[in-house]
């Protein structure tokens, strides 16, 4: 066992190619997700797109869903929306149940 201290940083923003690498996804797939409104990059065209915060989290979740369950981008968009609604409801429920 070797112990190492290393450079670590928080992933705050990713460029278009970096996001593709991060998700191990094709460019076309990412573009489709942007067109579905699932990912909302800053910047007008793919050349200067910056993906931040929730877009990074959503991209990775979307990738897992599409890879593991074979869902297309429209389906992924719907699943993500429903999951976010469900999580919000669960949070509210937890608050009421605790009281």
């Amino acid at each position: 066992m070797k112990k190492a201290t290393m450079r670590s940083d928080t992933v705050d923003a990713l460029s278009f190619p970096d996001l593709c690498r991060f998700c191990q996804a094709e460019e076309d797939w990412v573009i489709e997700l942007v067109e579905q409104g699932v990912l909302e990059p800053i910047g007008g065209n793919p050349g200067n797109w910056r993906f931040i915060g929730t877009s990074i989290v959503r991209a990775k979740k979307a990738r897992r869903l599409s890879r593991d369950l074979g869902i297309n981008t429209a389906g992924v968009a719907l699943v993500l929306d429903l999951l976010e609604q469900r999580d919000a409801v669960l949070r509210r429920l937890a608050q009421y149940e605790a009281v």
Partner: protein
Amino acid sequence: MEYKDYYKTLGVARTASTDDIKKAFRKGARKYHPDINTGAEAEAKFKDVNEAYEVLKDPERRAAYDQLGQDAPRTQGRYQPPPDWEGGFSFSDRAPHGNEGFSDFFETLFRRGAGPTSGMGSTRGADSHGRIEISIEDAYRGAERALSLRTPVVGPDGSVRLQDRTVSVQVPKGIVQGQHIRLAGQGAGPASDLFLEVSFAPHPVYCPDGRDLYLDLPVAPWEAALGGHVVMPTPGGKVDLRIPKNARTGQKLRLKGKGLPGAPAGDIYATLKIVNPKVETEQAQKFFERMAKEMPFDPRAHLGG
């Protein structure tokens, strides 16, 4: 090593057709997908379902697995493959996708001597992805955490072994669930990174939502009735909280900027919960009796009738 009943995992008969196996796998994958069904148990089941499908979908692997038979040699739950295992079979596609290992049973029977997962050995290795669970307190202050990693390493003779190592991870202050920490150069291959998705360990008090934290704040009936200041401990230190007069159970108080640090910092939402003291002494008994007599209060007035 434990014997794995892949048919049982997928809930199909040993005679099931490839289509039925596929159907059972898809159903199981949807049901237990870690993004849909949170909880450690679901994640383990999802892995089991994938492992079972990885074997049963492939005619070569399935035939080899079937040959092991139901009456596989088992002694007290431990399983040893027969010595002539793999005789007469050749596995064309050994490595399943993803770089997460399956069970020892799978690794021994189906991946013995096989190459590492795709992407490694090339000039640019595939990035690795993992998860790290931290406490909400760690996210408040920043922390250093030791993480155990197991990476396949290719030896000079081409054999693969798993190398254990411990890396220290700097957890930055103000990180929230879902964010990723990148460890540059620590991926499985050369010049590849390791990404760790952050999740918070369940907390006995706080419920996180982004940078905001929710909690139930217990208050005594007189604190709620009279209002006033209470001191509330938070991960960022003690804060003074003003309870309004005639506060109700369920009333939400916001502590601006006292949530997880950041720009902007999150808020803490305290939901008031009026808690009655337990009546155990005669004095307390008398006191409540006096209240019952002297306080004109009907909590059921709105029910009518």
